[in-house]
């Protein structure tokens, strides 16, 4: 009776529920990778993807205890002392107790993410028509690839100026093949590739790309840093010729504004950080608490005393104030902007002062003391009130340049590499963590020149996944 109607009904149900097409579901928040490179706008987004890679935890950004190229070189050097009442974050780095499973893996991965993003652009670049846009995008990608490899090389391998332990560089990756398990390139090949990418980038990149992106001046300055680390002083000077004369040294009056992101003066390249990014650079050094600034690390008392009272940096970089009733010299360089969340600031990756310092050092090493003193005084006159040149020459001039470099670039990720490239030990002072040098001293004070810990251990994740990667000696 009703059966046939029913069977018809069920057949209908069968047909309507044959939902083959509904099985092709795609994420709602992304697109197929191959569809991402069609026009200049797509490529521009991909370039910004590179910069967001620089911002990642482990590269310039660092949440929790992760290593960061911006802080770890200072944490492991002699400029800071751990605060006994801080959270003791990154203490294993401070104590030089890093090894393959307690190491800088987040940095290693983040740097290669930057490289992969650059390579993905370069592999697709011919989808763009030839012209200025294509050149500039290519220039940015090449420069970013060089920077990331250089940052890896300086942390995991010897610096060519002081090849202490061997001849290994780092894997120089120029492909997005996900099956790669590369060996380490030799140190000389690594640097040759870095130089090649930088030099190619210089011929392609725009003079200006706006705040937060690389430009020709920044690339030139970074290239000078590479040459400095290679001990190739003549080329330091040559590379710096790419820095536009429109940049100048920031004045004393404006110096605080640099660290509050209220001016771009004297900043060649910075990694922009906005509040929703959730990156709090300054947390590496301190947290605000109702009991006062709670520092993770304070400035070392001996180093602190190298800052003279007429040095604008002393008040911009430091604040002496109590935490839980005890005075400390806090590092407030990244404490935050004039308004907004605590500890959220941009990462100043290349500044004009480094241009001056690189030039001064190169001139001095080349025996051109007059030029060296000239650029050094350019910096010093913008830092000290009532500055009068001391007219140093010879070793005194070299020492003055080194001192000024340490004072100016403190907590910007330079100190450790400046010691490493010169083959100097890390020697911490006998002072404690408090404002007057009392308090708890560093548990470990000396890292002898040539110690294997001047090179980080390659992380266990890489070792496990890549059987041919060579670990650094000592780990």
């Amino acid at each position, binding site marked *: 009776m009703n059966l046939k109607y029913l069977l018809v009904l069920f057949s209908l149900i069968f047909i309507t529920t044959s*939902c083959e097409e*509904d*099985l092709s579901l795609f994420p*709602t928040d992304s697109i197929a990778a191959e569809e991402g490179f069609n026009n200049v706008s797509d490529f521009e987004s991909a370039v910004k993807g590179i*910069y967001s890679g620089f911002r990642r935890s482990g590269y310039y950004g660092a949440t929790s205890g992760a290593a960061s190229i911006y802080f770890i070189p200072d944490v492991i050097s002699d400029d800071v002392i751990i605060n006994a009442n801080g959270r003791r974050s990154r203490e294993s780095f401070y104590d030089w107790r890093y090894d393959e499973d307690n190491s800088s893996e987040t940095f290693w991965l983040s740097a290669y993410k930057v490289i992969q993003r650059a390579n993905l652009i370069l592999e697709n670049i011919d989808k763009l028509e030839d012209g200025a846009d294509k050149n500039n995008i290519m220039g940015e990608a090449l420069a970013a690839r060089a920077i990331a490899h250089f940052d890896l090389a300086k942390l995991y391998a010897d610096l060519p100026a002081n090849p202490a332990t061997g001849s290994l560089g780092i894997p120089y990756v120029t492909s997005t093949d996900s099956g790669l398990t590369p060996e380490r390139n030799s140190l000389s090949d690594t640097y040759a590739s870095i130089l090649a990418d930088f030099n190619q980038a210089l011929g392609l990149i725009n003079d200006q790309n706006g705040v937060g992106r690389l430009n020709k001046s920044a690339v030139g300055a970074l290239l000078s840093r590479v040459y400095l680390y290679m001990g190739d002083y003549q080329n330091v000077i040559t590379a710096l010729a790419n820095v536009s004369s429109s940049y100048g040294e920031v004045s004393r009056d404006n110096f605080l504004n640099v660290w509050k992101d209220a001016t771009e003066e004297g900043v060649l390249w910075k990694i922009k950080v906005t509040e929703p990014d959730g990156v709090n650079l300054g947390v590496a050094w301190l947290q605000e608490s109702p009991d006062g600034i709670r520092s993770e690390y304070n400035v070392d008392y001996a180093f602190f005393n190298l800052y003279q009272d007429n040095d604008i940096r002393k008040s911009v970089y430091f604040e002496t104030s109590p935490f839980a009733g005890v005075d400390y010299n806090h590092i407030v360089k990244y404490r935050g902007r004039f308004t907004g969340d605590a500890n959220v600031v941009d990462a100043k990756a290349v500044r004009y002062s480094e241009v001056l310092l690189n030039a001064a050092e190169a001139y001095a090493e080349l025996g051109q003391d007059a030029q060296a003193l000239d650029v050094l005084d350019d910096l010093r006159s913008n830092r000290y009130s009532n500055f009068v040149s001391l007219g140093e020459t010879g070793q005194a001039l070299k020492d003055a340049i080194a001192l000024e470099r340490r004072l100016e670039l403190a907590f910007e990720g330079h100190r450790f590499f400046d010691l490493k490239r010169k083959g100097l030990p890390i020697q911490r002072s006998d002072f404690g963590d408090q404002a007057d040098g009392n308090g708890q001293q560093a548990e470990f004070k000396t890292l002898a020149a040539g110690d294997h810990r001047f090179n980080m251990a390659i992380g266990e994740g*890489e070792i496990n*996944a890549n059987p041919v990667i060579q670990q650094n000696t000592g780990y």
Partner: protein
Amino acid sequence: MKRIVLLAILSIGFITIVSAQRVVTGIVTDQDNLGLFGANVLVKSTSEGAITDLDGNFSITLPEGANTLVVSYTGFETQEVDVTGLSNVVVTMSQGELLEEIILVGYSTAKTSDLVESISTVKGSAITDIPISSIDNLLQGQSTGVEVTAINGKPGQNGYIRIRGLTSINGNNDPLFIVDGVPVNRSVYAAINPNDIESFSILKDAAATSIYGARASAGVVLVTTKRGSAKNQYVEYSLQIGEQEAVDDGFELMNASQKLNYETALGVRAPMTAEQRAALLEYGTDWENVLLRPAGLTTHNLAFSGGNDVGNYYVSLSRTDQQGLSVGSDFDRTTAKVNGSFKANDWITISNSLNISRRNDNELRDRYNVQSPFVAVYQYNPYETIYNLDDNGEIILDEFGDPSYNFTHQGFNIVEAIRNNPESNRWSDVYGNVSVTANPIKGLTLTSTGGYTFNRWKNTYLIKPNSILDFYVGDANAPGIKTDRGYDRDRYIWTNTAQYNFDLDDRNSFNFLGGLEYLKNDYEFHSVSGKGFPRGIEVQSVAAEITDGTTTRTEFSLFSLFGQVNYSFDNNLNVKASIRRDGSSRFGRDNRYGTFYAFGVGYDLSRSLIQSEFFDQLKVRASYGTTGNEPTQLYESIGVLDFASYNDQTASFQGNVSNPELRWETQKSWTVGVDFGVLNNRVTGAVEYYNKKTTDLLFPNQLSRTTGFQSRLDNIGDMSNRGIEAELYYSPFRGDFNMDFGVRFSYNKATMDRLVGNEQINPDNAFSSVLKEGEVAYVWELVEFSRVDPATGDLLYFNAEGEEVTNPTASDAVILSGKSALPRFSGGFDFNMGYKNLNLTSTFSFKGGNWVYNQRKLDLLSGLDGARSIQSVEALDYWKSPGDVTEIPRPDVEVEASSSTRFLEKGDFARLRNVKLSYSLPYNLVDKVGLQNLSFFVAGSNLLTFTGFTGDPEVGVFIEESAGDVGGQLPGEFAGFSYPNAKSVTAGVNVRF
């Protein structure tokens, strides 16, 4: 009397018509002519019924024209008795069909005696009155082959159900959980009112699970909720109240005086004058007392159930209020349920199941730092005060008149944080179905069921302005931070089946089943954060700035066809075969479909081959079949470009490494078993052996980081689980005095059979245990600890060469063959006895063969590394001078970061899970006041524990907050300080009329 019950989704109506009647009396007895108390006597095709008294007597009023009684009693065969012209009858019940219980088996039902599959059933009545709010945890120890680990002791917290071991490494390990035909997520387990549950069917072998295809590798749990019946009309109210407290942590902490001495001796505190010392000792805090509390619990349950020959209903309401063991954590749940069915005509029946539930709780930080109260208990010192005190010991007030909190050596105050950084959750869950069943011709049943679940979660987290945390992370110009988050999950499932029963002759009968199913899941998450909340106002509209906002959305779908044939010969031989084809959106186009099949056979020797009086049942059965497992990730077969922001502009980058060749994880398993009953079924039991092999394991295969990625989802190897399950029940006494024993034992060994291209894998969800070919799954890899050097006080370890060294490296870690974090055996033990209306029931559960890293012990014996925080009194026994033989090293020796065997302990334990004493008032007494039943009980949970482990051996996950969902962390591997498990004592009353 004729009653028609109309059921709509939310409303019920009754219309009652009365007509002429007569009375029949009688007695119901067993084979030995002993009266049966509590038997159900019902007038056929009506709702009119009676229950026998203590001596088995009954009296029933028959409507005009009615001449048949239906008499039923649990454990006996139901009988129809013709009473035409009779006013008094004697009904003798037969026990022969003791096991003839009908249970749910996939898309159909079966008599337990016909089963060829491995299915455990757990009665709803076995798990009511246990004060646990999430029903997964209620299954602990209740059946063989099912191991449940609670994540932690938080009210409403989930557990991990593992059926026959670990199915997958990175894929899903949770069974498919189906409530009344609708698959639900883990988050819904705590939304279910345990009192609503009729039974659980736990499908364990492939013969049972294969019909669920691609989602069934980890087993299937079918939950059947109660339905009304004409035989059993009642209104029931039950109340349970009780108190819980944390189980013993197993550590004795230093007191204030000991701690001060310890700090001075270790040099973290300068020597003090007597006055300084006295000042510190004058005030102090017992942090455990401050942060933990005896927690109250109240549950009300109201149920209405009944029906007639055309319809039935079950309607319930419940409310549970449970305090958390920690101050500031509470749980409440309100549920409503409507189950109904109605015969639209003589061949169409409609039915529904509808559940509505709302839950609220408070979230405490469960991180491994001082923001978690359960860590804080072990970090603050006993001489530290909660508030800043003046010289007279009075609390100092701040500018707002609030007490000013002491920052302690941690720079934080947990009591303040609980008060000023509240986080709360609200879940709203609706799930149910509407089903139409038609029997157009004899033997043919067509069913179409539409199921739907809707889950909503809302979470708010407020860092109040000027709270301590606000100083640390907030903006002084816009104080206060608030985040509102939530998700909506919308899932529908449409299932159509056709079943045909066909008897060839008296001995050969067939059952055919065919069906198709479509499931679609939509999930949407949103989050808004703002800062700057004027005191007291906590909505985002007043925020000085909205700092972050996001929505995300994911979907997946599954389309399936399935079929099944059952053949039964002479009621002795049963054969079953099934097949299912699933299509999943999670795979690439070429690998989208998977076909799964199973075959099972069972034969009862006691009925034919062995003509023995001894055996009541001796059934041998065997099965083989396949199931699948989808990746938990939804889109790994596609390479995608992700979008983010840089400098407030669009940024894009490759988000994953795609694997278009991704295949189903496939499981092949076989089972052999024997079910038996002897001595008139006074002794029953079952023994089974199984071998489950999972091939093409889905796992994020590690990539060289130089690719810019850590891993890519891949099919990387095979693993197997082999095990034995045995259960034995013995009832030496039945009758007024009764006694039952039950033992359930399960043994399972999970082995990594093959790893492709990897010697060893260190999975992300484990701390120090690894996957290695030929080894047990998650075998420990640690540095072997030797001893404390009596000469120097150093910790001595064995290096890879077996020499004692003080500074081992990661490469000195060795595989501890056979030692795994996974339990090797588990089970339960029941003892029940009763005399007339007084009953005692108890269940022990046990688990063992696993090794646990005891991070808690490490934390409390950390020497100089931990001396600023409270330590165990054991730490006082540290090495002091050459020659000291002690287990505690020189205090300045660095404590290894969880990498040696020093704190690895055996996890074996047995626990008195539940014990309950209940009393029902005699029927003739309550009957006089119009009641069917009035009973009382007292019950206890987790009252006794037997273990060699230091502290609570029931280890869930280490840091629940960062563990994410399933697979985020291997449960039971690491014992850290987290929400403690509870022991409880409760009492209750149950009234039925």
